[in-house]
């Protein structure tokens, strides 16, 4: 009975892993194919089913005039927008979260919990609802199709995530630690950055990771709010899906777009598994 | 209810390697059906590990666990039929007291009349009848703790109730109320109660038998009286009793006599064949009497400080550089600075290399 149960458990794990990993492997394999290997029926294993080449990858930094797809600029645009948006969101979000966690706010019937909910409610609305107001507002300030405009929109989208995670984190930091800092001669601001902040690094890292993931993978807003001047990576990749789709370059570009996230996840996972998150505070 | 046997149980952090580091050294222990036990020791002595082995939270690296002769070592917690009470009360705050108590039975698909009967019986035993319809979240800490216990008791197949410092969050003057209810439950249901604590008062007042542990070993098993009067090691003498037992380094001076700090004291322990490198005399501060004349077993001393503990006074005295604590009644008059302390022979324990000499 126990043996059967265990085998079923492992079978489920294997099935699910296959389901998750297969598309990824498929993309890796496709990125090394050429026109022939893609169109002449399904091929799987390099050197056996098809002859791998690097054309798909080389095309990534060749200009369209040279027959490439050039995603270098969109890539760095994405890096810039995501990094600045995340950074500003984390800074503002952490401060807001600390205030929400430590001080009591009253405005009519509104309390701390309502304010926190207000932040999160930004993410409850379907993006479409926000898209038109954003479009009009950015248009008014001539920020459409600019990096600055995108960063502002990303801050609006990412800060709720930072606030949400950090409020929860700060609530778990005993308020007595802040109080001890005050008693030891820190003013409230010093208590925050000398004592609370150094002990909140794990929370900030988690919040930062979520901001980067959501920022990096956003397609909808960057698609609507940019046209020709500025292009972000997800939009650039989707744009490849034209009349004659270069599946090899598309796959390679998709893998490039995933790479930073894999790297971040890897580093953060190493950091968290060292016990830094749980060990910092009891 | 069941008799619980631990056979050669041990738990090590590195069961594979040759030099094992034990959290719990190999031991044998039998918990009689219906007994009331306390496991007592300082933090990190292995007492919680022992409890967790019985409840199934921890798998011992060696040995077997038997409930009424049946090996349950490999069974999970839920298959073992034990009730557990933790430091902090575990209650379902959204439910009434009644629903809380009924929950384990509802989960096991009992019939409604059977549930009601059992819940009422347990509520009565715990003195919770009047609270049955109240919301569990509105109760005091000791009432919540009773509910945690009650949820364990409604199941009629419970082998033992295991408690891990259940009185931590209870106010001192409510503690006794809960202790009394625990004892009544024990007498009524004949359930085996095993109670883990670091507080000697709780262990002594609660249990028929106390298991004293230190550094992963059982040091002594005995009734509160035995532990108090004849501690088997100096550790037990130190750990049990407030203040700790007085100990003096000494030398043998005849078949029954010891010499320390220029005094000779007669004991009831035969010391003739003793070949220990180090001898100690142990005596409880409660048994030492302050007298004004020299007698058979008296030593001269100087009173250094007298503390008022309410019902008692704690006298700190010095005799030839040895510190001695004496506990006397509040109304005992403490004579001038120089006194004589009487150490009754029947209360003197002799320790050879930290272990009680028995004969």
């Amino acid at each position, binding site marked *: 009975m126990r043996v059967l149960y265990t085998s079923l458990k492992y079978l489920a794990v294997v099935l699910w892993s296959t389901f998750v990993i297969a598309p990824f492997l498929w993309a890796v394999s496709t990125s090394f194919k050429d026109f022939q290997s893609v169109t002449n029926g399904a091929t799987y294993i390099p050197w056996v089913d098809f002859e791998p080449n690097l054309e798909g990858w080389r095309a990534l930094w060749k200009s369209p005039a040279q027959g490439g797809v050039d995603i270098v600029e969109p890539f760095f645009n994405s890096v810039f927008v995501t990094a600045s948006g995340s950074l500003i969101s984390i800074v503002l979000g952490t401060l807001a979260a600390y205030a929400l966690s430590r001080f009591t706010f009253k405005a009519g019937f509104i309390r701390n919990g309502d304010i926190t909910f207000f932040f999160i409610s930004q993410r409850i609305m379907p993006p479409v609802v926000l898209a038109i107001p954003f479009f009009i507002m950015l248009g008014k300030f001539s920020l459409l199709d600019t990096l600055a405009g995108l960063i502002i929109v990303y801050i609006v989208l990412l800060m709720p995530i930072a606030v949400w995670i950090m409020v929860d984190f700060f609530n778990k930091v005993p308020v*007595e630690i802040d109080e001890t800092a005050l*008693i030891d001669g820190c003013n409230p601001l010093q208590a925050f950055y000398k004592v609370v902040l150094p002990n909140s690094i794990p929370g900030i890292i988690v919040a930062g990771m979520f901001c980067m993931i959501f920022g990096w993978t956003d397609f909808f807003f960057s698609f609507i709010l940019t046209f020709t001047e500025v292009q972000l990576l997800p939009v650039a990749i989707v744009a490849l899906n034209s009349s004659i789709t270069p599946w090899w370059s598309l796959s390679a570009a998709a893998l490039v777009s995933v790479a930073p996230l894999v790297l971040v996840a890897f580093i953060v996972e190493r950091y968290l598994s060292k016990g830094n998150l749980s060990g910092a505070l009891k | 209810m069941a008799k619980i046997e631990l056979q050669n149980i041990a738990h090590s952090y590195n069961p594979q390697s040759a030099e094992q580091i034990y959290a719990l050294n190999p031991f044998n222990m039998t918990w009689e059906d219906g007994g009331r036990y306390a496991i007592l020791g300082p933090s990190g002595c292995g007492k919680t590990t022992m409890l967790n082995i019985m409840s199934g939270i921890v798998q011992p690296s060696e040995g077997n666990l038997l409930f009424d002769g049946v090996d349950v070592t490999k069974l999970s917690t839920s298959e073992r039929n034990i009730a557990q009470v933790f430091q902090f009360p575990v209650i379902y705050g959204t439910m009434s007291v009644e629903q809380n108590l009924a929950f384990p039975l509802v989960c096991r698909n009992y019939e409604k009349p059977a549930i009601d009967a059992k819940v009422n019986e347990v509520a009565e035993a715990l003195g919770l009848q009047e609270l049955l319809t109240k919301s569990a979240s509105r109760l005091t800490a000791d009432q919540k703790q009773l509910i945690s216990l009650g949820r364990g008791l409604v199941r009629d197949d419970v082998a033992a109730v295991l408690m891990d410092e259940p009185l931590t969050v209870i106010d001192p003057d409510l503690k006794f109320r809960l202790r009394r209810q625990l004892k009544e439950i024990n007498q009524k249901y004949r359930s085996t109660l095993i109670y883990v604590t670091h507080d000697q008062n709780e262990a002594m007042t609660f249990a028929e038998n106390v298991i004293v542990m230190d550094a992963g070993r059982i040091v002594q098993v005995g009734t509160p009286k035995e532990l*108090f009067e004849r501690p088997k090691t100096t550790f037990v003498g130190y750990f049990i009793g407030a203040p700790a037992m007085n100990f003096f380094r000494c030398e043998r001076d005849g078949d029954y006599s010891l010499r320390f700090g220029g005094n000779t004291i007669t004991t009831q322990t035969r010391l003739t064949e003793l070949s220990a490198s180090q001898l100690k005399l142990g005596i409880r501060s409660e048994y030492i009497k302050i007298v004004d004349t020299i007698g058979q077993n008296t030593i001269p001393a100087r009173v250094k400080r007298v503390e008022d503990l309410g019902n008692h006074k704690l006298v700190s005295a010095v005799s030839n550089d040895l510190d001695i604590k004496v506990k006397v009644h509040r109304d005992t008059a403490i004579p001038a600075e120089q006194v004589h302390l009487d150490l009754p022979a029947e209360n003197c324990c002799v320790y050879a290399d930290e272990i009680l000499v028995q004969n």
Partner: protein
Amino acid sequence: MSLIASNLSFKPGNEWHLDNVCFEMSKGQIYTILGRTLAGKTTLLKTLAGLISPDQGTLTLDDRDFGSIPVWKREVAMVYQQFINYPHLSVYENVAFPLKQRRMQSDQIKARVMKALQQVGLDGFENRKIQALSGGQQQRVALARSLVKEASVILLDEPLVNLDYKLREQLREEFRNIFSSEASKDSILIYSSTDPVEAMQLGGQILVMDEGRILQQGTSKEVYENPNCTKVAQITNDPAMNLFEGRVEAGRIILSSEIELELPQHCKRLATGSYIFGMRAAGITLNQTGFPFSVELSEISGSETFLHIRHEMIGVVGLLDSVQNFNTGEVVRVQFDTMQLYVFDQNEQLVSSPYCGLE
């Protein structure tokens, strides 16, 4: 130098956390705030620290308005019952933190930190991480941080309650030695506790607190001998003082149809009427010619036995000087030592005590 609180009140919701608190404390002394959980002890300490602003009342230290100084400029130190330290800093950096905050020179900081660490017995631990310390050591670090500042007011909020029993005993002794030494001659030390024995043992003054009010302030001896009301009598004794209602008629105390006591000398002046009588456990002992009581619970604690007994409406706890076993329900004969009788009026105020402080 003295710290004076007048009319401190704090009522955040429907309940008073501080209700018109007044006291005067002077330098170089220990004050113990004794009360049950939620009596307002922590609120009071936080108010003194400046972490809570009271709705009303003033605080002055040496005729300066203390209450209007922000926390970070008040010369206070506080140790919490949870082990609160800065987890990201080493032991040395933790203790040095308040001095660095004052921009003291680093060689001066070093000298004072080392001295404080030595006082709490942590020399050699400077570079340890906080998480690598045991609970007792963490609390020592917190204590060192409170000593190093040489603050004028040091607040200790049940600092030992989360430690093992034996460790608590040891640290309590060390605390008293540290605070009676030179180091704290210039400080006012305020310690909060739920444990009457702890309060007695610390010596100094006791402030008994309940429901946000200070019920009584006095030396430990005064509070023990003449508790001014029934609440104080209960809070300052473990087990709580036995209270039972009765009448004084024709020179006798009538507790029930069967129990009548002689009026002792110190109560002779009592007028006829109903009273609440109080007696500590030690005043209730066994005697062949005594009154019949049935045993509800007997608890052995080393050399003594606590006997929970009942006669009709009168439920009391007696203390026997020996170890004896009783069965629940067994009838024992009990004697009340009227020389130890306290009498409270219907408003629960003390009217007569064996120590006759109040008349």
